[in-house]
């Protein structure tokens, strides 16, 4: 089995979000970039397939040279090879078209992406990628079992979960549940040393449609101070929620 894990390079979850250039750009100053948390679950599941069922695992990212430390980390965790498409990932449709080209040329059986990137939260790349290539697709995937060509996948739905049956080749938008939090791997020294010897292939982007772009950013309006209610006076909270906030 040949697996491609699509890795999005995103600001660490604790990052302060600021904008520059007259609020037209995300301010990357002092921001630490990491593997998108959803993709970490997918990468760990891919390593599981590699170790338990035999698989080759490649990782791909669409991004500038600045994304390389993140993709190196994926190699250190155990991926065999990495691909970087040398283009700024400004729009999900654009990224999906680039990844579709990689998948077409690489002959992958399973493409693991994340449910969404925690930066722009688009949630578009996996579904678009699957559709562009006519591959099967399962979103918000929390369980994945593969036997030969047959797949049993579980997806999270509002208020529960759904078990689905399908076949390879398949694209998933994955999340926690693919593996547990405690199973996530952090690169060890040996992994980091080995990653230096692994191939990181840089390819140039193909011509592709850019469908959307962010013209301006805004920070949320500053919040007023919290209104504290005495613990012995919960009636007051109910009154405030009813009369002032009008939510009950």
């Amino acid at each position: 089995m040949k697996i491609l894990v699509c890795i999005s390079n995103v600001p660490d979850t604790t990052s302060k979000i600021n904008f520059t250039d007259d609020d037209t750009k995300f301010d990357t100053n002092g921001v630490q970039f990491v593997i998108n948390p959803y993709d970490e679950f997918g990468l760990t599941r891919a390593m599981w397939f590699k170790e338990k069922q035999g698989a080759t695992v490649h990782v791909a990212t669409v991004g500038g040279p600045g994304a390389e430390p993140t993709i190196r980390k994926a190699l250190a965790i155990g991926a065999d090879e990495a691909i970087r498409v040398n283009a700024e990932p400004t729009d999900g449709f654009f990224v999906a078209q680039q990844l579709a080209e990689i998948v077409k040329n690489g002959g992958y059986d399973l493409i693991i992406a994340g449910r969404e990137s925690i930066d722009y939260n688009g949630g578009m790349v996996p579904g678009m990628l699957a559709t562009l290539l006519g591959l099967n697709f399962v979103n918000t995937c929390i369980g994945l079992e593969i036997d030969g060509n047959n797949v049993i996948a579980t997806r999270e739905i509002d208020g529960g979960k759904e078990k689905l049956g399908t076949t390879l080749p398949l694209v998933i938008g994955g999340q926690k549940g693919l593996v547990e939090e405690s199973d996530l791997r952090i690169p060890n020294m040996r992994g980091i040393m080995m990653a230096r010897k692994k191939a990181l292939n840089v390819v140039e982007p193909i011509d592709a449609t850019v469908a959307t772009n962010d013209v301006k950013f805004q920070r949320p309006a500053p919040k007023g101070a919290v209104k504290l209610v005495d613990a012995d006076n919960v009636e007051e909270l109910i009154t405030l929620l009813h009369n002032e906030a009008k939510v009950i």
Partner: protein
Amino acid sequence: MSVLVYTESDNGKFKKNAFEVASYAYEVAKQLGTTATAIAIQANDHGSLGQYGISKVLKVTNDQLAVFNAKAYADAIVQAANQESAQVIIVSSSSDSKYLAPIIAAKLKAGYIANVVSVPEGTSPFIVKRTVFSNKGFAQSQIDTDIKVLGLLNNSFGLVENSTTASIEAFAPTLEEADFAVKSIEIDKVVGKATIADAEIVVSGGRGLKGPENWGMIEELAEVLGAATACSKPVSDMGWRPHSEHVGQTGKPVASNLYIAIGISGAIQHLAGVSSSKIKVVINTDPEAPFFKAADYGIVGDAFEVVPKLIEKLREFKAQNA
């Protein structure tokens, strides 16, 4: 030219978000000088959409579509969009809609923007506001393709009545075998309980509750309020509550009208996922807990004392205001 909106139903009954996306579609259509058409799959009571400004309903009845199937539903919606020459296609942010929307967008080579929070700020160029960076910011996003797909963030527009009479037309999409290459085997879903995605009120518990055996009062408070229950990440990691209740930046986003956080410290990753909620209430023993900075109302106190009292007083309040 028209605006097409996918109105979701559950067991034949429109979901609340169906009326919200319908209300929104009416506003978008008005801006574009056109009308809003809804596509309803396996739903009843199509006329009710007229109340929210829908002029025409495409009614799909097909047993193959009895259970949600992303590819087949997307195919039906794309065919409807083609028939209606839809310029804008609108869906909600339910898990089903987020599954469908990118498929629809790729089939139509359309730009797609998710988590939209307002009507277009302009239609040429076409610009909408959406949340980004897990609610730590907003973006004004421009869509340059002829056809546009918008995913509306739940509870961001609300229900707006614009009474019209909706004409109802049968619509029979042509479905192929390949549409069903991913098949539903089993659905395991809580029934009769509000879900985090749909609920107007969410009651959420954190590590401060000490253990799963103490969730009875959380359930009870949720029941009195007709709310969904949720939890912080460590609570689901420790298996006190199911994964599906984990909210925050790496869990489910919450966009309810009211979010009540009990025994939750308010870590940045937690707040990022819940800050779209309009009103936030925190109950915590520690006055220094960061959640107090993000909340609208707060009680510094022990959840084991405050919550039972709150339940009792809310029951009285509900009885009086019934």
